[in-house]
């Protein structure tokens, strides 16, 4: 049973009053519950836009997105989101940020403090509850963003190039931790990234998009279950890297020729 149904979705923007830019052109995609799906593609292919539409932040020009059978109209805590540049509330402490969604639901002070604390511990930031975001490194800030999202117990995690602004070392660590978290909770994850290897490492399916207009070029099954060993992952990643890279390179080449 699919949790997310993307059905014939298109997105156009009007620029300069009379020109239309087609960002996404007819995307059909179904994502099953508990699946980890990555979306990769060159810049401008609309992958972030697609994610934002699932999130309910941006309406589609045509077609429909359904979550659990119901059409998506607006954002909600059932679809949590993290962004590349963390988007933490700088005037709130780590605890204040993680508690935020719980407070919006009207959960009492003591209860939400405990819940928030458990998520802060889960992302390995114990001790930083009363620190303000500007004192934290990029990696730590992203952990807070993830904890903030998870605290609301969303059924879907939307991740918009979450590790793009971090250094290689931190990225590796967070990728591993994300995989561990996913193996633990088996939430549905839609993960947008530029990094092919990251996509293969984390997901069961990788959706490759082409740019201008954004369409699904191909979908590749990584064939790796949640209990796959490191070795199997590495082998598969190398195997698929070439295939996917060809797609990306071909798309980039077409793009350049098209221009």
């Amino acid at each position: 049973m699919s949790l997310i149904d993307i059905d014939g979705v298109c997105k156009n923007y009007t620029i300069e009053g009379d020109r239309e830019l087609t960002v996404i052109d007819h995307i059909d995609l179904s994502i099953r519950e508990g699946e980890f799906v990555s979306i990769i593609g060159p810049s401008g292919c609309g992958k972030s836009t697609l994610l934002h539409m699932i999130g309910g932040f941006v309406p589609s020009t045509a077609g429909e997105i359904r979550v659990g059978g119901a059409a998506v109209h607006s954002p909600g805590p059932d679809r949590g989101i993290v962004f590349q540049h963390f988007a933490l509330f700088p005037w709130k402490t780590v605890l204040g940020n993680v508690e935020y969604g719980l407070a919006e639901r009207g959960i009492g002070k003591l209860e939400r403090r405990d819940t928030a604390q458990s998520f802060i511990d889960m992302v390995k930031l114990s001790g930083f509850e009363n620190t303000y975001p500007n004192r934290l490194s990029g990696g730590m800030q992203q952990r807070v963003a993830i904890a903030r999202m998870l605290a609301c117990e969303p059924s879907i995690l939307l991740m918009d190039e979450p590790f793009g602004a971090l250094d290689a070392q931190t990225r590796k660590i967070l990728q591993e931790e994300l995989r561990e978290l996913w193996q633990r909770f088996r939430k549905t994850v839609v993960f947008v990234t530029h990094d092919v290897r990251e996509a293969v490492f984390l997901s069961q399916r990788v959706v490759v998009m082409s740019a201008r207009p954004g369409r699904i070029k191909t979908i590749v099954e990584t064939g790796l279950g949640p209990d796959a060993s490191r070795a199997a992952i590495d082998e598969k990643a190398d195997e698929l890297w070439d295939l996917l890279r060809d797609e990306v390179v071909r798309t980039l080449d077409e793009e350049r020729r098209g221009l």
Partner: protein
Amino acid sequence: MMKAPSHTLWLRRAGARYGSIVVVLILWELTTRTGIFNNFLLPPLSDVLYRFALDFISGEIPRHALATAYRAAVGFAIAAGFGILTGGLMSMSAVIRRIMEPIVSVAFPIPKISFLPIFILWFGLDDLSKVLMIAFSCVVPIISATYLGTTTVDKYFLWSARNLGTSRQALFWKVIVPAASPQIISGLQVAFPLALIIAVVTEMLTGGDGLGGYMIRSVRFAQSDKVFAGLLATLFTGLIFIQGFAMLRARLLVWHNETAVTAAG
């Protein structure tokens, strides 16, 4: 792919840009002509425009506007010259910086207009006290911006120039000032409207000529249409001032861009 015919788009755009102004003006005329608003306190727009036209043609408004603009411009020019020089000196000499920094810091928030009666005492009721007050009010943001601009010049600019044999003095005028000019111009932009604000206040206090004098006299003689005509004249003068400054700025910045290009290439 065309979305909508362009002439309706133009209309919608104009509506968004000017719509509420037009609505306000229409309401003004209607509510006063139909007696909803007291015609003395709020003369009808047509009466105001009529009075404005009368006093404009008779030369009264242009005379006053010119007087105000003249004082504001001279005061501003003095402030600009003195301010840029001081700000520049502050960046070059640690001693001058040590002396000026607290002075500027104190001078910024104090209402300098409160010194006007002192200026009048010292310099009389004529142009001198007004122009000096304008200069006094405008100089502080200019010093501040110049100092900021000249002290944050990219050190690579400086090193390159020194490497090419520029002496310390020449360095200031050839490299630092041009590099700091966006900041300096930004400071000038902050000080500029202030010049007109202060000019009008000084004129209102001394009641002589100038737009401020024109308006305060109108109030005292209970000529409400003149008060509004004066406001309109002041608005236009302010507009011309701002436009003039924008043109000057564009010319100066064009120069700046050119020098930047030649420096890089």
